[in-house]
């Protein structure tokens, strides 16, 4: 399905180029070869980037490391300073002045013909922008977490599937050998039957109290930054620190769900389902502008009997990362190449021919490029990303309501709790609406 789409994109682009009818130049000029590329320019994946903050630019650099397989032709940000700095970076890489810039993603989508979009924007914008880009049949490398709410997530998943695009979630841990190895060992029963999983995520950051209202800096389109979120006066907090405020994010919990919960699901084969019961508590700042929980501790029960406890890492003896406990022992994985077990023997031995072999990728960015070309599924497909963040979001709902939440992972509905159900979505500020998919 997505193979066809991906080809269609290429075809569309070449056809347009032949006909000379494109709105903006799509043929990458031969001067671009000056950067020592191995691929002819027409074979490069033509990229746009929405969100030129630290994560977007870090991803862009990682794509640029792939031997000229990509070319960024258009950038978009609501901060004109960031946008011009990003353009300088890109133009310098291609030794030209060709990269186009936009302050509004809608204009970018209207004017550009792209193979792929890199998107790294605050969570509250994901629902609209991920779905809109997918509706344009542009392949997406999208940053985790997939969504701010379950409803946003459901819309994005439908948009990606219905449009048959290639999607890669920025959950890059999947493309690291030790995370892969740990998950594969667990999936093949090396800890026995999985009983319990611990997921340790970072503690909250540092509060800033109640800063005064400030004048919006000239370079920032504050109304566009807020987008579908409720209008609030500017208080000097936007880039990066949005993650401590519930209008835009769920704090460290949702920021990191796309990493260690994603790995927990991968190893325990929970990628296509969700918990049936969730309960727990959060530590909310008593004072100040930051209102996301600084600490959190909740337990998810699955229909197959597995329990997963998600908490800030200081609550666990093994700290950060994912630990699967089975009747034969435990295996723990974390960043920094950490792969340990209750007994080192659990980590030995090959995965046999007839055992389960998890999808293998040694470069998250190359994997996306390869899949855009082949139309195959990526290592971090949309549903896995959505199921990972939905655990965090359901935990957030349990903590907000103070109640035990019952969840139907197939229908994706909260059972018998009208109040909690209302927290599955956040109404959008007019005139913004979720796109129809």
């Amino acid at each position, binding site marked *: 399905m997505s193979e066809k789409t991906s080809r269609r994109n290429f075809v569309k682009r070449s056809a347009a180029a032949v006909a000379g009818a494109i709105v903006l130049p799509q043929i990458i000029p031969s001067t671009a070869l000056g950067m020592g590329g191995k691929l002819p320019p027409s074979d490069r994946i033509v990229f746009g980037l929405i969100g030129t903050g630290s994560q977007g630019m870090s991803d862009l650099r990682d794509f640029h490391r792939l031997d000229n397989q990509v070319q960024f032709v258009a950038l978009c940000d609501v901060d004109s300073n960031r946008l011009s700095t990003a353009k300088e970076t890109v133009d310098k890489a291609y030794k030209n002045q060709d990269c186009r810039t936009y302050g509004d993603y809608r204009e970018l989508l209207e004017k550009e013909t792209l193979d792929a979009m890199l998107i790294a924007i605050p969570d509250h914008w994901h629902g609209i922008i991920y779905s809109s880009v997918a509706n344009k049949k542009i392949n997406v490398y999208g940053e985790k977490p997939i969504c701010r709410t379950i409803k946003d997530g459901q819309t994005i998943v439908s948009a990606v599937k219905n449009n048959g695009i290639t999607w890669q979630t920025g959950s890059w841990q999947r493309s690291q050998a030790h995370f892969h190895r740990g998950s594969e060992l667990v999936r093949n029963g090396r800890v026995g039957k999985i009983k319990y999983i611990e997921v340790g995520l970072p503690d*909250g950051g540092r509060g800033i109290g*109640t800063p005064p209202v400030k004048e919006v800096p000239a370079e920032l389109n504050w109304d566009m930054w807020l987008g579908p979120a409720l209008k609030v006066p500017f208080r000097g907090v936007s880039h990066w620190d949005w993650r401590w405020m519930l209008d835009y994010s769920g704090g460290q919990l949702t920021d990191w769900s796309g990493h260690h919960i994603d790995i927990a699901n991968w190893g325990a084969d929970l990628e296509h389902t969700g918990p049936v019961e969730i309960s727990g*508590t959060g*530590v909310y700042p*008593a*004072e100040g502008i930051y209102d996301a929980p600084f*600490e959190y501790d909740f337990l998810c029960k699955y229909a197959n009997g597995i329990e997963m406890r998600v908490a800030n890492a*200081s609550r666990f003896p093994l700290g950060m990362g994912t630990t699967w406990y089975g009747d034969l022992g435990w295996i723990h994985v974390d960043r920094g190449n950490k792969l340990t077990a209750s007994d080192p023997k659990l980590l030995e031995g090959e995965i046999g021919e007839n055992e389960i072999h998890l999808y293998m990728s040694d470069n998250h960015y190359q994997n996306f490029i390869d899949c855009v070309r082949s139309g195959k599924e990526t290592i971090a497909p949309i549903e896995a990303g959505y199921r990972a963040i939905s655990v965090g979001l359901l935990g957030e709902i349990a903590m*907000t309501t103070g109640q035990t939440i019952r969840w139907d992972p197939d229908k994706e509905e909260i059972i018998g709790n009208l109040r909690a159900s209302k927290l599955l*979505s956040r109404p959008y500020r007019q005139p913004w609406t979720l796109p129809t998919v």
Partner: protein
Amino acid sequence: MKRQYLILLLVAGLLTFFSACKKEVHYNALIITGQNNHNWKASNPILKQLLEQTGLFSADIIITPEKGGDMITFDPDFSKYDLIVLDYNGDSWTEETNTAFLEFVSNGGGVVVYHAADNSFPDWEEYNKIIGLGGWGNRNEKSGPYVYYRGNEIVRDDTSKGIGGTHGPRSDYIVKTRNFEHPITKGLPVNWFQGNDELYSLLRGPAENMEILATSFSATRRPGQAAEAAAPAQGFRRIREGRDEPVLMTITYGKGRIFHTVLGHADEGGGPAMESVGFIVTFQRGAEWAVSGKVTQEVPFDFPSASGVVLRPDFKVITLDDAMANIGSYEIEKSTKNFTFLRSYIRKIADDEKALLNVEKKMVDVLKNNEVTVDSKKLLLRELSWMGSDYSIAAIKELISNNDLKDEAGFALARLQPSK
């Protein structure tokens, strides 16, 4: 007994009986003070207030003779009390008083060792067993080992030579809970801020039967200097070299239970270290544990996190009525505490429809009040959007025509009337 007195007693008893939110006073406490290198005149009435605020204690204060005074007059009857709070750092007591105190503790009396009380009596061996760790007063390796955490490992056998007790300049610093099972610290955040306090470091002592409940990081090069003060710009990237010093401890001595807190340096009127909710709550919970071995007090909504210091001005506890009476004056640059209270209260009563409706009615009353601020209505509408019922809808609809509130009213209605 006189008849009048009996009636009074009866009335008092009935009042206690009917006052649902006030717990019955179970325990008698005695605060010992009168000499201290700290402002004991400021601290002792506050300690009394904090104990009595729990509804579990009534507290007396006994003031020792001044420095150099005749200690023979200091002869408390410990047997009348369940808890002794030590806010004393000064001259030796008489042998008789010492013996009576040790008897009180070993027979099961509770003790709270508060801040500089762990400076007192460096040469009284049994006292040092009661406090576990102490500082100053020429304490050194002869006083016992240093006890602290290095990373996640507790170190109990550091007998290296050196002074006992120091602190750096006062600062806000993070306290790290180490024991989540102990009644005193169960349910507390892992990391929480203490405001503008002294960070006691390099304490040493016998440390027998001592458990560490919470620690704070102190840099090796400047012991007692909190990393948060030494390198504020580094944020969470703490100075690496250092150790986590005990700030909350429990000790048992005979049958007695001792809670030792190094927190709560007193200024005139209390000041930020005493007004810090972390100090207040751990002091109150520690006192209850010391007399009963358990803690019935809930962790309050305003317990701090790593997000920042939280103070209780005048040591006042917020109630639902206070919160709802003051919530309407909220403006965007002011304290958000009443809203945090409201959110935590809603969580607490989440399974009680009647109580929820009661709160909803109070919230709607604020919405309907023309005297209250737009900013407070905005925040209330966010809460009502999910916890509200049909009861709220009419009042919210009224606000749709209000230019300042139409977005938030629309937000709330979109959730409360999803078909629209």
